[in-house]
């Protein structure tokens, strides 16, 4: 089942709408709660990244029998050095913003931690595409 959401940059008051909707659906189709949690945390982080950094973006989610695929594409400044951005604690936030408790540099690492497959492509000055997959069965 395919779902689409549009996200406006800077619209913090509505951030999380897509992940909440997806959470509701996953619960309804009896996906184990620990997996729902991983998906929601990853999707929420990615959604908030668009709100916080980009001008606008779209989220496409495909729920299948055994997994969920998500693609988040935004139009925004892009990420210059993805590898660096993936490091825990790396943040573009100024020290002042960090003092207020924001920009801890855990966004992308948190997405990686909670997904089974993760791809990030970015063109500085144009935008970023984040796609990930989470399987419903925990791999043993």
């Amino acid at each position, binding site marked *: 089942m395919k779902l689409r959401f549009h996200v406006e940059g800077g619209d913090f008051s509505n951030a999380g709408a897509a992940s909440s909707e997806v*959470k509701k659906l996953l*619960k*309804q*189709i*009896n996906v184990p709660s620990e997996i729902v*949690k991983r998906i*929601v945390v990853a999707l929420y982080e990615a959604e908030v990244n668009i709100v916080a950094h980009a001008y606008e973006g779209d989220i496409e989610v495909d729920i299948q*029998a055994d997994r969920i695929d998500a693609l988040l594409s935004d139009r925004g400044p892009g990420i210059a050095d993805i590898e660096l951005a993936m490091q825990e604690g790396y943040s573009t936030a100024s020290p002042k913003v960090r003092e207020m408790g924001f920009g801890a540099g855990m966004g992308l690492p948190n997405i990686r931690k909670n997904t089974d497959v993760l791809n990030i492509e970015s063109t500085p000055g144009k935008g970023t595409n984040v796609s990930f997959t989470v399987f*419903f069965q925990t791999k043993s």
Partner: protein
Amino acid sequence: METKFFHHALRVLENQCIGCTHCMKVCPTGAIRVIEGLARINDNRCVDCGMCLRSCPVKAIIVEQDDFSRIFKYKHRVALIPAVLIGQFPEEVPTPLITSILFELGFNKVVEVETGVSLLKEAMEKYLADDTHPRPLISSFCPAIVRLIQVRFPALVDNIMLLKPPLDITALAIREELHKTGATDDEIGIFYVTPCAAKIAAIKSPVGEKESPVTGVINMDTMYNKIYRVIKAGKEDHCVVPENEPLEKFAIRWTLTHGEANNFEGRCLAIDEIHNVIDFLEKIENEDITNIDFLELRACDQSCAGGVLVQGNRFLVRERLRKRARKESRKNNSGFSPLITANESFLREHLGLEKLEPRPLVHLTGEPADALKKMEISKMALKCLPHLDCGACGTPSCEFLANDIAMGIGSIRQCFYISRLLEKQQVLNPDEAFHTLCHIWGEDKIREERWNANFHHLNELIEKENNLNKSNDDESKRIG
């Protein structure tokens, strides 16, 4: 086949229910449907919060209780009363008077539920200090909340503190104390005066323990009436009973909102009213809100002061208890009460709850693959429905009807809007449409009571309506 998990204390009186949908619309777990003119509660979804009872305009939902005379089966008849019982009476009615009246009604021991709070508070402090527990820790106090988390937030079940609520601790202490005097369990009757349905359900089918130490329950409204009648009778002298040691300030306030949260270090929040709790837990579950240490969550607005069986106004009950805490309490940190001290090591051993199991709500049955197919049907149905959430189909909202359709237990024809359209398109004949109507609202009601008996009113009304429209038309012509 769904397994039945819980005992429930809420019952629909079939001869009283008018199938009006009020209860269905406020139910936080979507447990109610109206079928054949009656509200039906799905046992596996119900968490006994009592919102349905509160919303019922004809008092057709009741809380089952034990027959009062059952207390006389026991040699030791203990009334276990929560602070909110006393909070319902005006200040002029002192605690010892209420205790005396309970003796006159047949009890031979009266203990306040909050007697065990001091021991619990200490245990909670230790529990909170232990970093190995997940955060936020959620209090196990309100049984409706514990069940809500089991069914709606299964991922948060491990956040519930595995400590018994004050009710169980105090009941255990009483039982142990009586055992010491040689009393056997079949001689001991501990009766809890409950402010809500959830506590009854928790006693009849406990979560996290094998058996409740409480023998039975008496609804607070019943007890209120009994006590009030004695007071009103104006008897001058009441029997003199041994006075219990006063409770600590925090113990008296424990069942009020912030009663727990105010006592602990760190970020502790208190949230009351079940819909507020659901909103908050959604955010906690998404990790949208983080770094909270402790959550005190209560199903009722103003917590137990707002319990469905509490007679008094919840704000006045709160005021009364706060005053009592200032006047009648003993110092905090003045040690446990004698009942607790005498049984301290036994209670400490039995303070814990067993691991709680999640009991996720079944929305669309089957493995994700099957459920996904049903979900697609549900989505398709939802696109056809008017999104009015009027409840006339007998389900709480268009979304619920769509889900019921996908599950094979509902039909798109239940929607008034759709069935009108289908009739117009001549897909559905009026008889079929009427049949569906009867299924939701009950054939008896529609055929006899509402239609035949009121038919002449209906004709009269239509005539009046036409006249009104006509005079309005004339009026507007004149103005025009």
